[in-house]
């Protein structure tokens, strides 16, 4: 009796629950994964079912440079968050900017690829099933990159205004979870579109 009461009393101050920010972000990622799954399934289901050209093997080039940029931005944001946790806002700013730049390059490269496909190969979303599934899947991912870039730019503005401090490390980390997710989805999209589907 006395032992349990004492144990309960000593346990009370240690009542720590998971922080709500990461829990919410993981939940959102679960929902997003399920949205992406449907688009990926549609892509896989319609591979080779286009009635007319152009076909993937004729027009798609593997975007190696863009992929390297996006995947390495996962590393830079990790270093940014680690630096902020130590209170090193200068290093945080540099890594954060590197992430923004790498993400920007990726989006620019996607834009160039789309320009090539639309104006030189004549492939649009309404051309055939390949166009439909390609633009919607890559576009869905691209829209997530865009949202990430807007948030990164917002963080950069706060940084330049000198408003980012060590106690904001958790918020940066919650965002980094989203950014890692966007990168991981690209691994799936890349595999499906440029390896399996080509």
């Amino acid at each position, binding site marked *: 009796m006395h032992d349990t009461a004492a144990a309960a009393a000593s346990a009370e101050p240690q009542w720590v629950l998971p922080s709500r920010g990461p829990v919410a972000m993981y939940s959102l990622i679960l929902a997003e994964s399920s949205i992406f799954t449907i688009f990926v399934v549609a892509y896989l289901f319609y591979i080779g079912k286009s009635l007319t050209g152009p076909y993937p093997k004729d027009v798609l080039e593997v975007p190696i440079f863009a992929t390297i940029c996006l995947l390495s931005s996962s590393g830079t944001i990790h270093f940014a968050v680690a630096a902020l946790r130590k209170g090193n806002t200068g290093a945080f700013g540099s890594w954060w900017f590197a992430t923004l730049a790498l993400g920007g390059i990726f989006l620019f490269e996607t834009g160039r690829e789309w320009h090539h496909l639309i104006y030189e190969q004549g492939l649009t979303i309404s051309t055939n099933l390949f166009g*439909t599934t390609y633009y919607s899947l890559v576009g869905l991912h691209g829209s997530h990159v865009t949202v990430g870039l807007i948030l990164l730019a917002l963080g950069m503005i706060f940084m330049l205004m000198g408003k980012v401090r060590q106690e904001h490390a958790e918020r940066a980390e919650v965002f980094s979870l989203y950014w890692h997710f966007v990168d991981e989805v690209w691994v799936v999209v890349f595999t499906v579109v440029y390896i399996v589907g080509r």
Partner: protein
Amino acid sequence: MASESIALPRAAESTPGITERLHEWVVTVDHKKIGLMYILYALVFLVIGGIEATIMRIQLIVPHNNFVSPQVFNRMMTMHGTTMIFFVAMPILFGFGNYLVPLMIGARDMAFPRLNAFSFWLMAFGGLLLYFSFIGGTGLYGAGSAPDVGWWAYAPLTSRAFSKGHSTDFWTLAVLVSGFGSIGTAVNFIATIISMRCPGMTLGKMPLLAWMNLVMAGLVLLAISPLTAAQAMLMLDRYMGAHFFDTQAGGSAAIWMHFFWIFGHPEVYVLIIPCFAFVSEIVPVFSRKPIFGYPVMVGATVAIGFVSMTVWAHHMFTIGMTSYANAFFTFSTMVVGIPTGIKIFNWIGTMWGGKILLKAPMLFCIAFIFQFLIAGLTGIMLAAAPFDWQLGNSYFVVAHFHYVIVGGILFALFGAFYYWFPKMSGRMYNEGLAKLHFWIFFIGFHLTFDLMHIPGMLGMPRRIYTYEPGRGWDIWNLLITIGVFFQIAGVLVFVGNLLWSLLKGRSAGNDPWDAWTLEWATSSPPPDYNFASVPTVRSRRPLWDLKHPEDPDWKYE
């Protein structure tokens, strides 16, 4: 002292005008106010959806009836289904969850109060968007007004060629927007339940209502998102000339059915699991016993959550799938019956040997248990693929799922209304009127939906606006429609009881049911901050421990 001196001047100047009070509700981020707004909003749409159902039933009361045109019948059918699922059942359950979960876990609000308000308004405007189609749906084509593609909106009926005008776009947008609201609410529920529990409330000591809302929120994330994706594809098809569901360009109509039912079947569990939660809270209190088999209840809920993700294609046996797919979906659907059966066993186990008080909430819960059992049994029948080939797309199916939604979900909701009304309003409802409501509605429900199985077995297809006389369906359709009027009378008694009790009911006190969970520890209605000091719990029934310090629960758990 300090708090009194702050409270007094507020009370003195507090006769704010109607606009001020309205403004306070519009800008609120308080989980209780948002919860009540969800519930009121859903009740308004319940009446609208009910009127649409009544119009359909009047049209079908006799063969060759001309009460409404076939076009209007299709619109009523689509609007009834869409309204009842997205703008009645989901908001009303989110409303109860919003109101109760923070109170039951000893928190002062949801994890993200502003996201909570945002989610509510998304859902509210989604509903307005759907009903705006009556005005804006015709577009420039002179086409029909409200959507008429059915709530499942099968392709290629939704393509531009067959759905001219904007009505289908309003349907898509309304469902998409309210879907974003649902995802926001689900994220909020999960973060609240994981991160905001009061000291001592480990997951194993959490009330079953919180557990079941956690599972429901997880299902929303996994089930509503595919619908969001499918709606995005449909919009691409309609606006940008994409070919996802365009069979002329090699697209597939069947894949829309898959995407829709990957959402559609877990959605049933999104709706029924919070109702399991109500029953799991009400039955113990009115049996004066703790819930029987708490860990098994939690396990069964999680199991239902997982299995429900693998059963969707039992809605599609009649489209001709491979025998492997038929066998798999027959099997997985029957597996859901096991955890569901465990729950029914446990509720009866809770009542067994208990001192049962037959108040209105308990009456509704007992009816729920037996009606849900029957709905499950017809579900098992339809899960067998060969049986489904015979009765799929007949009134037997309509009877089956209305048995789940009305006999299950709505009965549990009425029970929840009577059980928590004293907490939400601070006043008791009228027990006599509540029992009158129960019996009238009970008779109406059974008249309508028991009998509806029969024309289904006699071959009456669903979704038809009229039928030939002399096929043996006439008398059943007449009786089914008469049952509807009993249900309307029951709902009128219910609404009247709520309004009368809100104004004239006697004061309820903090804990009218001598219950055991934390929401009864605070005043009725609870203050903005819920609890003056955050409670600490040591068992699943914290108020029992408080009332019986000589024999607390935590000695045995």
